[in-house]
């Protein structure tokens, strides 16, 4: 019954891949916009943090569930 760990690993890998791509794009757009209009940099940063939190949402829910799989479900099975 070691498939639980593989399942948790897949959840983590997919979430991490998606989040990092999203964050990369978000960061690059932030830098472009700041370069174009430096005076609105603070406002852009608060928006960036809000969006970073939202991008993080699904992968972190995935991390939460995979941690649950690893530490609660897996010992229960074994």
């Amino acid at each position, binding site marked *: 019954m070691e498939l639980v760990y593989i399942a948790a690993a897949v959840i983590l890998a997919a979430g991490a891949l998606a989040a990092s791509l999203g964050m990369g794009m978000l960061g690059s757009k932030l830098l472009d916009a700041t370069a174009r209009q430096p005076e609105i940099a603070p406002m852009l940063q608060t928006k960036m*943090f*809000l969006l*970073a*939190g*939202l991008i*993080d*949402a699904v992968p*972190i*829910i*995935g*991390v*939460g*569930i995979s*941690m*649950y799989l690893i*530490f*609660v479900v897996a*010992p229960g099975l074994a």
Partner: protein
Amino acid sequence: MAGGVYEQPSDYIQHHLSNLALGNHPDYGWGFYGGDKVADLGFWAIHFDSVVWAILMGALFIGVFASVARKATADVPNSKLVGIVEATIEFVESTTKDIFHGRNPMIAPIALTVFVWVLLMNALKFLPVDLIPYTLEVVFGVPYQKIVPTTDPNVTLGLSFSVFFLVLFYSFKVKGFGFIKELSCNPFSFKNPVLQAVFIPVNLFMELVGLIAKPVSLGLRLFGNMYAGEVIFILIATMTALGFSFFTVLGGASQLAWALYHLLVVPLQAFIFMALTLVYLSQAHEDH
């Protein structure tokens, strides 16, 4: 488990991830249970530690803000506490003005409560993992204790569903029947009533799924962040259990690094919870 001696790390992790549940056990009767015995307490089991710590943080919030508000004066804030409270209120007020465009005097207090309460509940993560659970175990013999309420899905989903009911209440109050109309004709709307009637179930299904997804994602996002952070804090704590060696130093360094990272995550999650609450409430107040 007695006296905190654990055979393997997973016992330590298991122990620190289970709540103290108050419930009626089929064979042992009423009492506090934890770990695997919680499963057969059935539906009527209350996570006692989450409830107590959530209420404590709420009381702290109300006490501090009320006492400062009572002493509020127009001139420069004399103590740091007054400064902090004023800064928080101004921050919440400006965010509310940016996001919420309706006219409802209740919205800013709701946003302030959500923000500061979630922030205080999350801030309990900065305490070392074993500080309170171990002292409670030694002093009062409390077997299980998870002090951060937001690592308990019941608490976060409870928060997000109460926000959801607020959204429904204001939607019906402001839009009345228009809310049902908005739900049933939104994506596909046609002049021809027959064609519109055909598409009502399709619209309703899509809109209701979207409506339900809001509180669930709001609650699970906060839970996921805090639960994952808590598990990693506990993992780091197990590293320091191997006596003084390279791992202990590494454990201390990673504990510090993870706590510093959470200096960003804790307020950010509280801010996101408040911002999304405001966004959903302002959507509820939009009246075309």
